[in-house]
């Protein structure tokens, strides 16, 4: 079965994969869900971009077009970087808790434990607003995508227009509703994916150097987001930028 071309039988699968991965990226906060969704989205967009590219002379890497290979590999590497970042944060959290436990054992941290429990309960509480806002943003993104793809088509291919606008709108939606560093990084990656697709759609001929540089930028962005996330978490014990500032303000008031 040829997975690199889209036909009448499988295009729905690709659209479902694209839509599903975008919803997961926009709505969920758990990195163990976000990283596979990101990789799936990259691979799906790579296949769609390959199928929509009407260039006669393609640069091939064996049986696979270079564009698909670079896009796929950059997505996988970015996914691995985010996965490792999430893992590093969990290890850091465990160490932090072990430190707290030690303090409690030494009977120094009763008050701190009380505050920590209150904070954890508050943080782990299921709040509709955490999901309503991203779902609302996704619905708005879907509406905007439909409107743009029908009112401002530019590539002569409805699938290409739809996917480009969808990635752009979802990327912006994630950036708007995102509060933590990893989430904002994911939003940027989704938007970047859209630009790559546009390059495949409208450009006449693959430039291997541009494709490689674009893949390198994707990986560099993932590394930078990971660096910022780990640095921030190590110091503030949260990834939420607003929360970090509020916590500090509360502490200074006390």
């Amino acid at each position: 079965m040829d997975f690199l071309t889209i036909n009448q039988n499988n295009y729905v699968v690709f659209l479902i994969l694209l839509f599903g991965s975008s919803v997961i990226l926009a709505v969920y906060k758990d990195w163990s869900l976000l990283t596979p969704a990101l990789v799936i989205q990259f691979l799906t967009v790579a296949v769609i971009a390959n199928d929509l590219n009407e260039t006669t002379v393609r640069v091939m890497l064996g049986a696979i077009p270079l564009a698909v290979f670079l896009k796929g590999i950059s997505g996988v590497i970015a996914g691995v970087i985010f996965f490792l970042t999430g893992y590093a944060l969990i290890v850091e959290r465990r160490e932090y808790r072990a430190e707290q436990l030690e303090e409690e054992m030494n009977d120094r941290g009763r008050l701190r434990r009380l505050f920590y429990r209150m904070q954890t309960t508050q943080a782990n509480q299921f709040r509709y607003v955490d999901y309503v806002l991203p779902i609302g943003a996704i619905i708005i993104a879907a509406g905007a995508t439909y409107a743009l793809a029908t009112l401002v088509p530019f590539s002569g291919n409805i699938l290409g227009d739809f996917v480009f606008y969808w990635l752009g709108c979802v990327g912006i939606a994630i950036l708007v509703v995102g509060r933590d560093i990893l989430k904002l990084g994911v939003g940027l990656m989704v938007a970047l994916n859209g630009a790559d697709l546009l390059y495949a759609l409208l450009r006449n001929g693959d430039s291997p150097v541009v494709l490689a540089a674009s893949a390198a930028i994707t990986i560099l962005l993932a590394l930078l987001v990971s660096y910022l996330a780990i640095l921030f978490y190590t110091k503030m014990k949260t990834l939420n930028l607003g929360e970090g500032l509020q916590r500090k303000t509360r502490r200074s008031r006390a």
Partner: protein
Amino acid sequence: MPFLILPLPFILTGFIVGFEFVFSPARFEFSRRLMVVWPIVALAAMITLLWLPTPDVDLNLFGFSALAKLFLTLLYVLTGVALLAAYPLGVLDTGRFAPVSLAVCGLLQAGLYLANPFLVTLCIVAASFISLIAVVDLAGTKEEQFVKAVRSAVRYLIASVLFGLTLFIALVFLERLRLDPQLTGVIKIVVALLTVGFAVRLGVFPFNLWLPELLEEINGLAGFLVVGLINAAATVFLFDFLQRNPALLFDNYNQAQAVMYLGLAGAALAGLLALAQNGMGKMLAYIISSDYGLILFGLASPHTTGKSGALYSLANLLLLQLLIFTSLSLIYYCLRSNSLEGVTGLGRRMPIAAVGLMVGLLGMGGVPLLSGFAGKYLIIQSAAQEGIWWALAAGVGVALSLMAALRYFHRHFMGNDTPGLRTRPEPRAATALVLALVFAVLLFGLWPAPALDLINSAIK
């Protein structure tokens, strides 16, 4: 030989990172010194290679334009001065500022060497990403400052990606236009995307939301990397790109007029907002935003005076930014990284830093006898050629920025000394550098002709 110039900064960056890993600059004094020596030697070698006669190269594939050579030389010299200033001010202790500066220079150089605009865009975006490491690394140890620095770094990251995306999309549409010249409507889209992308990168009002908090929270020398080096290289790229594609702006007055409106309105409004700021960094951000607005106006204007004024202003902006950011770093060093909030009478405690800051701010305000004057004068002259209201708007932008700067300077540097404030003495090496920069500002202010001639010949 000419190709050596591309990998050289990256090889040395890798070497410095490795060396810093073995001999931490925080522990070894000689390592800190070498952090200055190696990048400066590399920058000197890059300047030499830049001006070496090269065999005939196809400028359609790669090669430096005359303007790029001129500006890269200036960038390298000023980066060398920034590294020299970083040493006595303790900025090199973490060991990342030197390799980051060198890597940023290398990426900007690669960007200006390659003719493919897609690659240039990616190089500038990569340079922005790398500069972020310096932004976060020099954020300071205080928690609140750190959180705000990371928050502003994330905003800067988003702005950098947006710049890359808009430019990338504009270039893709331009390719489409080349294939099908009948699509004249696409020109508007390309110009709009280019303008928005560069307005975001340069921080032209109202696309400057990422800039005020960034400059408020980060170390001044990291600020120089972000709003000095990268913005200057991006502007040079924009000018070269517009020269290669005159149908977009230079030969298209209708499109150019819209960009001129944006630049001028941005300059005047940013000047007005600079008056309302409550922090030194935020005020500086709006003044810089106003200056880049004027530069955008000058680049888009159909008159040669506007273009040469914009490029001369850009070169001076680099020099003045370095002077201001070095003086600010010196002030924060003497204040032991404490905030300027509520502090008065600093002029007596830090006279050299105060002089440096004053000259820098007056220079940015386009005061005669200082280096900022000639560029501003040419831009306002070019605005006057469009009509009196254009010139008035440009003048209002400059005047408001100057008022904001003087007001802020008066608040902190004049008046009574703050009782109980503990400060360090100004380090001699840093004061010598500030004085050297002040001298350069005066020199280019009194004698701008040679520099203007160089820029004019590079434009031709």
